[in-house]
């Protein structure tokens, strides 16, 4: 029983970080129909930037902010130079382009920071006892912070002027343009927001397992799975799917080893594609 509670907490914490990664990915997909295979690598780059800032200043919260801003700017530049010229081309072209960007970022990180794991120290010290286990407060703080950031994004999309621009463009690009919404700028902005979310997730996740130049792909894959399971481009669906899949993985880890538990998410992905290809958490389309 206590094991189930511990794993529930664990799953929720992982789910919140994953939800943050996935919400950036799904936002970009929803508006631009682009599967950004470099998303996880922007996360990794953000984590490295964060680690460097922590290394120099010792201030974790500053690192979180700097990483988000730096990667947002980088994301905007990437969109303008690489993806904007490809708008209207075969989707495969953009997939290959983001894949190429992913490789470039990985190799840059290897060249810049080397292959070793970098640590980011936990900004919130201390543990609390949960049954037989010492559970670090930091993980709780991470989940709460991720929740706050996602809520912030949601409020921005719901009530902000630019949020309405983004949603209008997602629904009907041509009509949005006719209403005077500068759609190319909206695309760049969304890409920057998605990148910032990825970078912030990287810094949040950093203390869990360290920062390596290969961590990106794993996140791209996991985020991609939950985006598909939640319904492509559906923000709420992606968030629910993140928590759902993470919880399932956590519970599976009770019976099998954690490495094998990852298989659960692939099983969910395959079952979703077979029986609900529009996504688990969207109303059945009429």
């Amino acid at each position, binding site marked *: 029983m206590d094991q189930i509670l511990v794993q529930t907490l664990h799953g929720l914490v992982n789910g919140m970080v994953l939800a943050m990664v996935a919400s950036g990915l799904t936002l970009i997909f929803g508006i631009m129909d682009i599967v950004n295979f470099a998303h996880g690598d922007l996360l990794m780059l953000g984590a490295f930037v964060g680690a460097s800032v922590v290394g120099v200043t010792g201030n974790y919260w500053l690192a979180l902010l700097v990483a988000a801003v730096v990667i947002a700017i980088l994301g905007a530049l990437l969109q303008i130079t690489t993806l904007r010229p490809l708008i209207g081309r075969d989707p495969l072209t953009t997939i290959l382009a983001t894949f190429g960007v992913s490789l470039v970022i990985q190799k840059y990180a290897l060249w810049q920071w080397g292959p070793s794991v970098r640590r980011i120290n936990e900004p919130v010290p201390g543990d609390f006892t949960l049954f037989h286990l010492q559970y670090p407060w930091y993980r709780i703080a991470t989940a709460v912070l991720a929740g706050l950031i996602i809520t912030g994004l949601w409020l921005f999309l719901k009530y902000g002027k630019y949020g309405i621009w983004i949603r*209008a463009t997602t629904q009907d690009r041509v*009509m*949005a343009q006719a209403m*005077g919404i*500068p759609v190319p700028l909206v695309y760049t902005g969304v890409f920057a927001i998605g990148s910032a979310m990825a970078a912030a997730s990287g810094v949040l996740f950093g203390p869990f397992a360290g920062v390596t130049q290969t961590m990106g792909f794993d996140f791209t894959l996991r985020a991609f799975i939950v985006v598909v399971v939640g319904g492509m481009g559906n923000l709420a669906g992606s968030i629910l799917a993140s928590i759902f899949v993470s919880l399932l993985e956590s519970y599976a880890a009770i019976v099998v080893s954690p490495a094998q538990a990852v298989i659960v998410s692939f099983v969910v992905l395959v079952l979703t594609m077979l029986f609900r290809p529009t996504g688990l958490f969207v109303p059945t389309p009429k």
Partner: protein
Amino acid sequence: MLILESVDAHYGKSHVLHGVSIEVRAGEVVGLLGRNGVGKTTTLKAIMGMARRTGGRITFEGRDLQGVPPHGLARLGIAWVPEERRIFRLLTVLENLRTGLDRPGITPAHRDALLEKVYAYFPILKERRHQAGGTLSGGEQQMLAIARAMMLEPKIILLDEPTEGLMPRMVAQIQEIVHALHRDGVAILLVEQNVPLTLDAAGRVYIMEKGAVRHHASAVELRADPRVIHEYLGV
């Protein structure tokens, strides 16, 4: 104000518009009549930069529209109410209106005044302002599409078949709003199949057939001599 000079347009490889020339002067309501598929909607899309223009010139207040980005037309004062209405279905009525309201240099007081103005024209939109656009009836969506265009405070509205598929009561209301816009000095290029409504609302009328303008006359002349209408539209 808006001048099309022998405009040619293509959809893919098919040649849709053949040398269309149309002029709309400031504050004028101009009708564009013709059967289905003669290129009326494409003419509007050519103005909006959505149909591939292969020849001719389109100018607005003396400015060539070639090279103006699609989102720049709204700022120039051109609003488009498409045939399919293209309401942002998941946005609320108010949010739909805000897509045209949230522009640079507009004061909060001015925004509120504009909203109140369209709510006065279309009380139903005020009632439904927090409802998703996709849940409105066809007639209400048409009103929202027109109201949304009005948020831009345009100099001209390109109005594409606003009464198509609407109940007579709704048609009368749309007719009313066209008159009101005209009184406010907004020019309208009205594409319609509804001949009586067009002859009532418009000062001048162009009649299109097979991608070209075949006839041009004042509404008064056409009302006096319906033979032309009969010839091109069969009514």
